[in-house]
């Protein structure tokens, strides 16, 4: 058995979708009730970390629209998905942050019996997918965002969030051209003053060519999406930090094979020998309809319990 988690934005139920379309007066209560249900699903699947399913986040950047210096921009395609996010425009010095993520999490719904995890964008992805109209160069802009996310991470740690995942699809998608030293500096800034475990989630791109460099980043672990990075291409590396394998496909309704997946992961972990090991979904579950996302959560738990790793 290995540990497991499924972080990110979850899909809304058909009932909640109808309510949001009608702008139902009971929406805040409904969001809480639906969140509770999905937290229970995570508990039922016996996941190691429990998280807020972020049903009220319209995209991964939207809560940051409240930060001073940022405003909402145009809709943009989120990588190669058919889902769009609203770009943020930075047109002034960033200010007034520190509890943006925490205040947008329903931490009170998460049981004290479970360890709590949360996620937010990594600084490189944040800078890449939004627009800078204020900072004089890209490095200044990137580090301003890293400083903002560092404060956010510190607040989460104080709120007993034990595990923070930085979602880094841009690092993976642009693996051929990304400036890894810049990514390293920015991510280490976020981790530096944070007591929580910090993992970097690399999805939507093949990171095999930069995997060795990513291992040098001083954070607690890496999460690799196995639908875009072939496990065979990284299995030769010894991993001196934590490793999470994103093995349950959150982009397809097809149910993942339990025995085959568990065996592949067990074999890979034996060779890579990470300090600690996890399994997760390949990316956020929001790309699946509600009913299938719930099935995938359950499948994730079953596979995690079927993996053999000491």
């Amino acid at each position: 058995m290995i540990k497991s988690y499924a972080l990110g934005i979850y899909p809304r139920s058909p009932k909640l979708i109808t309510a949001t379309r009608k702008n139902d007066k009971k929406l805040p209560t409904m969001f809480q009730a639906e969140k509770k249900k999905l937290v229970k699903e995570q508990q039922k699947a016996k996941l190691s970390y429990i998280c807020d399913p972020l049903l009220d986040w319209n995209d991964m950047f939207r809560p940051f629209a409240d930060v001073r210096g940022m405003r909402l921009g145009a809709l943009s395609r989120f990588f190669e998905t058919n889902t769009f996010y609203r770009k943020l425009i930075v047109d002034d010095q960033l200010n007034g942050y520190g509890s943006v993520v925490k205040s947008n999490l329903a931490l009170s719904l998460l049981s004290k019996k479970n360890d709590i995890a949360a996620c937010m964008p990594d600084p490189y992805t944040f800078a890449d997918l939004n627009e800078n109209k204020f900072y004089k160069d890209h490095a200044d802009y990137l580090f301003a965002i890293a400083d903002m996310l560092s404060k956010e991470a510190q607040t989460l740690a104080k709120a007993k969030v034990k595990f923070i995942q930085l979602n880094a699809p841009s690092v993976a998608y642009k693996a051929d051209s990304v400036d890894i030293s810049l990514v390293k500096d920015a991510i280490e800034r976020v981790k530096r003053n944070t007591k929580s475990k910090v993992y970097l989630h690399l999805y939507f791109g093949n990171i095999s060519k930069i995997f060795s460099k990513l291992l040098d980043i001083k954070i607690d672990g890496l999460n690799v999406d196995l639908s875009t990075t072939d496990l065979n291409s990284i299995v030769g590396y010894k991993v001196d930090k934590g490793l999470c394998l994103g093995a349950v496909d959150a982009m397809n309704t097809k149910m993942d094979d339990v025995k085959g997946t568990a065996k592949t992961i067990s074999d890979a972990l034996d060779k890579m020998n990470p300090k600690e090991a996890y399994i997760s979904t390949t990316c956020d579950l929001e790309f699946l309809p509600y009913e299938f996302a719930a099935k995938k959560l359950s499948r994730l738990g079953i596979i995690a319990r079927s993996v053999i790793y000491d």
Partner: protein
Amino acid sequence: MTRPFPTQEIGSLKKPEWLLELVRNKNISDTDKNKARNDAAYLNIKTLEDIGLDVVYDGEVRRVEMYEYPVRYIDGFEFAGLVRSWDNKYYKKARCVSKVTYKTDFHLDEFKFVKENSNRTVKVPVTGPYTLADWSYNEFYRNKQEFVLDLARNVVRPLIQDLVKHGAQVIQIDEPAATTHPAEMKIFADAINECAKGINAKITVHACYSGNEYQALVPYTLEIKAAQFALEFANRDSWKLGVSDDVRNGYSVLKAFREHGYNGEIGLGVVDVHVDDLEPVELVRDRLLYAAKVLGEPTKVYANPDCGLRTRTRSVAFEKLRRVVKGAELARQALN
């Protein structure tokens, strides 16, 4: 078309409120609902003709949506549920669970109606195989290529063949997913060519909002057997008048089309379908003149909106189309 800057619409218009209320009413018979759909189609056709468009259809008034509607009629798909497009907007996404097959020509009745009731060139919009596959979950095929090509051969081509057999002369394959995955452009190109194989009609391709401003499409423009690419540009362009490169920044990819040797038709998006602001006719004119300057042949530059106008009110949509027609007239005058 032999005159410069022929005008066309792209596809969908917002359905009239009276039609929506009527078709949702469970107490009204299917026969009466169909009569109402005919009335709405007739109204759209005649309005588009009165506006002065050279190429028309019925505003896709009988279709619920461009993905869900065809999927309902294709064997091999099952609807999985709702998936977010953005914010509170969701679409119904299907899973492919067995080999896709063509059941019936789901556009034939609407085409026959348009053909009988229009005296203009009729262009039938058909959702393309790449988009149908890309917007679905694949649980059956070994890979996306097999999935897309089976849709092209077993569904979209037979559909087009039936339409052509009944007199369709222009088919627009709608592919809003076209350039979403730059690494899959070869699959996209092969799929369009499979759809067009043996078809004796003009095939055009409409793509929109799929990313990278069509740079990924350019290398395939000669390989794809389409007479026209109808694309969106206006939403990225400035609203300043003029025909310089700086001012017409939304149309910069046209140079790449020309440099690659593409000499087919371009359906030029000259009005933005996502804003209510109405483009001045002089702006439409300058966008057309710029395209003609870059591409060299004004009879091959069609004037159209960026995409279907279903997100605008009917009054805004029709006014935008009027400006497309008037802008094209001004552009012709400027050439003379």
